[in-house]
């Protein structure tokens, strides 16, 4: 017998008998621990209730008191074929998130419908969600056939109705099985009462389901989870969501555009060298050169890249009482990447009863809708129908997961009426004409660390050498470009993004732009790095908080200490020092001229004449 278990979800309307079916499956396959049935019978007797198979499932006291199954419970049983785990998904409307939690893990589903009542709204909603969550193997169980005296006519009516509905979703049930869970008809053994039914029993159908598998023959998607440095190795870690990779492959990373060759697939306690890996494997790789790559970036092969999008249509389900509204901004998490997205439009709210849709401005709890999202940063993604794992995601609001979505349409830059015009003057020509490369020297550090002083001194020194250079100072840009922005965390992030975009334009024009911003958060600087690509050079202007406070050139620390400035970096808001800046300048120990000399050396080396000679080919990303 194979050990690998199949995950089954059982869904349906609240009173249609899911728990009874499960209790019966456990009992009839001999999967209950000894004494369990007796224990539940005894408990029912004490409580003065007639014994129900459903009670076997209801292990929690709270459930027995309320008489409904509350949460996703996982129960194991075996047939002669293989082991199973049943994920019991509750039918009560307000417990949608538990249903989603359960069903999203399943290989296959049983949809339970009462023979007497037929498919109700919840049955249809559940079928719809199964489809949305990606469960493609579904069988229908028409339960309580004893209540309709095993009428084949009644069965046909119910079966046809649900088949028609499923067909509209593009789902074809593997079987529609008439059963009485309470009495055990057509569960394990064939019932004499339904001699007109020739299809499989529930157990036969379960054994006919196949485990869900990810195909290694699809395009490679390796979303990065983390970067580890356990020793002198730099290991990029993540799980391959589709496709396969081999040592020696050239990987490209979205959205940065960086690329490098795979030198090794790292494995611990593995005597043989690993040469390839495929979908489903959690791996670590090392590359032939040090590129900027971090959590959220997706590695792929050049030929089959994910799409980069700012605008996308999704089909989503909404889980919380605060409705999704047009204009609100959420975090969209696709694989390991997180992006801030704003709801641009609710195209349609879908009525799961008849699949009709109406436009709206909001999506309420338990509703399914088509929505257009817009992101400031480019998102690397796929259509859910092509590659589900990089084509679907979760929406997060504050601390909570509030909904899930499938990407159904992606608008690329061309369709958005933005066509990037190719310049006839290349970056290389500009660099040759200027005698140096364009680049972004990003000075980050505490207020008072010496960024502005150093920036202005560098600008002077470069200008005196005939370089094209300009300082973008954090305070100065707030008077013009960013005049509309305040000091909320969103506005600060936007301030930094705009400076990065502007800096990129300067660098494109061939200039050395010196950006001087506190930019306290790693995430904001990482985004600036994505925008700037390989031309981005992070310089950490380091100084002790105490030193900075003593210098206090703008009198800001004094005000912050007096509580006059909220969220002042270093006092009441954190400064996250860079982990791996291109350069650190310690203004605690260096004099002003020493600091400048160090910075000049770096700029000269990376952007000056020598860098032009050594690098014949100037290829820039983004």
């Amino acid at each position: 017998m194979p050990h690998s278990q199949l995950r089954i979800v059982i869904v349906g309307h609240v009173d249609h008998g899911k728990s009874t079916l499960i209790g019966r499956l456990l009992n009839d396959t001999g999967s209950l621990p000894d004494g369990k049935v007796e224990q539940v019978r005894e408990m029912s007797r004490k409580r003065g209730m007639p014994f129900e198979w459903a009670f076997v499932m209801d292990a929690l006291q709270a459930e027995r008191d309320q008489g409904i199954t509350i949460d996703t419970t996982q129960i194991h049983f075996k047939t002669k074929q293989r082991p199973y785990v049943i994920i019991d998904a509750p039918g009560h409307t307000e417990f949608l998130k538990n249903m989603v939690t359960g069903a999203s893990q399943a290989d296959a589903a049983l949809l339970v419908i009462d023979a007497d009542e037929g498919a109700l709204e919840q049955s249809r909603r559940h079928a719809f969600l199964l489809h949305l969550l990606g469960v493609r193997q579904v069988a229908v169980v028409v339960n309580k056939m004893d209540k309709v005296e095993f009428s084949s006519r009644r069965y046909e009516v119910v079966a046809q109705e649900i088949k028609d509905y499923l067909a509209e979703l593009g789902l074809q049930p593997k079987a529609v099985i008439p059963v009485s869970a309470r009495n055990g008809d057509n569960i394990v053994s064939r019932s004499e009462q339904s001699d007109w039914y020739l299809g499989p029993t529930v157990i036969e159908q379960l054994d006919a389901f196949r485990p869900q598998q990810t195909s290694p023959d699809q395009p490679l998607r390796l979303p990065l989870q983390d970067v580890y440095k356990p020793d002198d190795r730099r290991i990029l870690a993540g799980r391959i969501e589709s496709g396969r990779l081999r040592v020696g492959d050239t990987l490209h990373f979205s959205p940065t555009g960086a690329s490098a060759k795979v030198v090794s697939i790292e494995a611990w306690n593995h005597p043989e060298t690993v040469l390839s890996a495929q979908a489903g494997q959690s791996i670590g790789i090392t590359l032939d050169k040090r590129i900027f790559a971090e959590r959220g970036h997706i590695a792929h092969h050049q030929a089959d890249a994910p799409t980069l999008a700012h605008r996308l249509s999704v089909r989503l389900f909404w889980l919380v009482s605060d409705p999704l509204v047009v204009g609100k901004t959420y975090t969209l998490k696709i694989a390991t990447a997180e992006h801030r997205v704003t709801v641009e439009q609710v195209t349609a709210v879908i009525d799961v009863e008849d699949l009709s849709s109406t436009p709206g401005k909001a999506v309420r709890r338990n509703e399914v809708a088509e929505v257009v999202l817009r992101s400031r940063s480019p998102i690397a993604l796929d259509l859910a129908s092509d590659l589900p794992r990089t084509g679907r995601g979760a929406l997060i609001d504050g601390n909570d997961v509030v909904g899930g979505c499938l990407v159904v349409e992606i608008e690329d830059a061309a369709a958005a009426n933005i066509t990037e015009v190719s310049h006839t003057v290349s970056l290389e020509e500009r660099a040759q004409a200027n005698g140096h490369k364009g680049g972004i020297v990003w000075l980050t550090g505490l207020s008072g660390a010496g960024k502005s002083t150093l920036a202005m001194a560098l600008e002077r020194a470069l200008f005196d050498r005939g370089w094209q250079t300009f300082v973008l100072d954090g305070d100065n840009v707030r008077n013009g470009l960013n005049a509309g922005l305040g000091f909320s965390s969103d506005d600060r992030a936007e301030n930094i993004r705009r400076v990065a975009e502007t800096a990129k334009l300067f660098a494109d024009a061939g200039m050395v732009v010196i950006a001087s911003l506190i930019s306290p958060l790693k995430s904001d600087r990482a985004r600036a790095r994505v925008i700037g690509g390989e031309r981005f050079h992070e310089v950490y202007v380091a100084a002790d908080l105490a030193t900075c406070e003593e210098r206090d050139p703008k009198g800001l620390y004094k005000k912050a200490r007096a509580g006059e400035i909220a969220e002042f970096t270093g006092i009441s808001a954190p400064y996250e020092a860079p982990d791996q800046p291109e350069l650190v300048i310690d203004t605690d120990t260096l004099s002003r001229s020493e600091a400048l000399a160090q910075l000049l050396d770096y700029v000269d080396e990376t952007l000056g004449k020598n860098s032009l000679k050594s690098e014949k080919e100037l290829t820039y990303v983004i």
Partner: protein
Amino acid sequence: MSADLDQLENQSIYILREAYNRIDKLAMLWSIGKDSNALLWLCRKAFFGRIPFPVVQLDTGMELPEVYEFRDRITKEWNLDLKVEQCPPEEEMDQTLPPLTRAAARKTEGLKNLLRDHAYQGVMVGIRRDEQATRAKERVFSPRSLEGDWDVKDQPAEFWDHYKTRFPEGVHVRIHPLLAWTELDIWRYSQREGIPIVPLYFAKDGKRYRSLGEKNITFPVDSTASTIDEIIAELQVTRVPERAGRAMDNESEDSFERLRSVGYM
């Protein structure tokens, strides 16, 4: 054939890496039983040999001598950053709990002290869904209040491997990388990987520990299985529940549930 073990292993490593990346201050609870030994092993795989967070034993002083011996040996051999948290005495427990349950509650209090004193934001725990009905309800990332309260009726949605990793002040998260594993999976994996096992799991004089707890509240069950092979064979036919030798579970109908709702692992 162990493609299913590969799948479980890959999923657990994914969870461990998510936890390490998303949660600031993390520790792993090590009960020294078979499950948390497997979890340690998975941590070493996930992080390429070096476990980047402390490993904590909640110690009641009541473990069997073989357990302490095993702990000290493995800590040294695997170079673990072990922290031993002494649990408060039984007299300080909720006296309305039945006596054996009270003894088990010491670990809950030890855990609370640990969280309070070290401000851990996440603790990894090697529980499995198939062990016990209330554990079946767990999420992979399961938020708890400072007191350890578990709100089973209002748990976060968890789908497509998107876990809840952001929390308000005062909330910590239990991370359960082994939730999808079964007892049989753990044994098959331990065998395949050669993971060291406390010898108490193997039968001696017709009895073995199937689930390992403190000596005052855990008892060996009837068994002749003295190798992993024999344990695997035994598990494929047994109908005795795994925690049959855990006295507190069987003391009263809701003992384990009461323990868990106030923060037991």
